[in-house]
C-alpha cells in the first residue's frame, strides 16, 4: 500500500489523519493537536490544539482550539507517540509563570541572530536576510 502512494504531501500525510501531531511553525511556535485534514499545500486542520512553550526542563501549555494553518508556515509535522509522551522527563508549570522566561529566550535569540547577520553582512559579504521572507 505504502509503495503505491507517491512521496508527496498528500501521499505521506494520509497515515497522520486523526492522530495527535506536533507542528512547529516558522516563527518557532509549537502546537500539538489532532490532525483532521490537509491538502496539497500541506495546509492543516488541527483540532483540540494546545500551544506549548519550553524552558530548560519545564513546559507550559495553553488550549488554543481549532487551527487552520497555512502550509507555507509549517517547518515540521510529527506524530506524537501516546505511549511515550508521558515518559518525557519534563515538568509542567503554569503558563503565566513560564511565559516571561520564554519571551526572554525568544528575544535573546532574536538579538543573537541579528548580531550574527550584521557581522556576516559587514565582514563576510553575505547578503542581509529578510527582504521579503518572513516579514510578510
Amino acid at each position, binding site marked *: 500500500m505504502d509503495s503505491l502512494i507517491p512521496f508527496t504531501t498528500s501521499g505521506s500525510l494520509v497515515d497522520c489523519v486523526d492522530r495527535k501531531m506536533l507542528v512547529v*511553525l516558522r516563527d518557532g511556535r509549537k502546537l500539538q493537536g489532532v490532525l*483532521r*485534514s490537509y491538502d496539497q499545500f500541506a495546509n492543516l486542520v488541527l483540532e483540540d490544539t494546545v500551544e506549548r512553550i519550553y524552558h530548560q526542563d519545564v513546559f507550559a501549555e495553553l488550549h488554543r482550539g481549532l487551527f487552520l494553518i497555512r502550509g507555507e508556515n509549517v517547518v515540521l509535522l510529527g506524530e506524537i507517540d501516546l505511549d511515550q509522551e508521558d515518559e518525557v522527563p519534563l515538568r509542567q508549570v503554569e503558563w503565566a509563570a513560564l511565559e516571561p522566561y520564554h519571551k526572554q529566550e525568544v528575544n535573546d535569540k532574536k538579538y543573537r541572530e541579528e548580531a550574527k547577520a550584521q557581522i556576516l553582512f559587514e565582514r563576510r559579504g553575505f547578503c542581509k536576510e529578510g527582504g521579503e521572507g518572513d516579514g510578510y
Partner: protein
Amino acid sequence: MLPLSLLNAAQNKPMLVELKNGETFNGHLVNCDNFMNITLREVYQTNAEGDRFWQLKECYIRGSTIKYLRVPEPLLDAVKDEQTRAREAGRSARGAHVSGGRGGRGAPARGRGGPRGAPMRGGRGRGRGM
C-alpha cells in the same frame, strides 16, 4: 473535509487571523476564495507586539500573507454532520436510480455476449454492473 472547505464553511463565523508578520485580525468572515484571500467585518487589528489595537469596519487580507486562522471549535462537527447528511442524500438518490435501471440493462447484455460465443463473464465490463 479539506482545509479550504472548512474555511468556506466558516462564513459569518468569528475567527482570528494571524499574519506572517505577527499582526492579528479578529472578526467575522464575510467571504473567502481558493487562494485563502479573505474579507472580515467588524475587525479588531492587533500589532505583532500585542500592545496596539485598531478597529476596522471591514478588511481584506491577501491569502499569501496568512500564517494561520483560528476558528470556533464547534464548526468542525457542524461541517462533518453537514457532509454526512449530503452523502446520505446523494447515496439514496443514486441508489434509487441504479436499482431502477438494472433490470433493463441486464437483458440485452446477455444477448450481446451470445454471438461471439465468448464466455458470458468476459463480455461484461469490469465494474460496470455496479
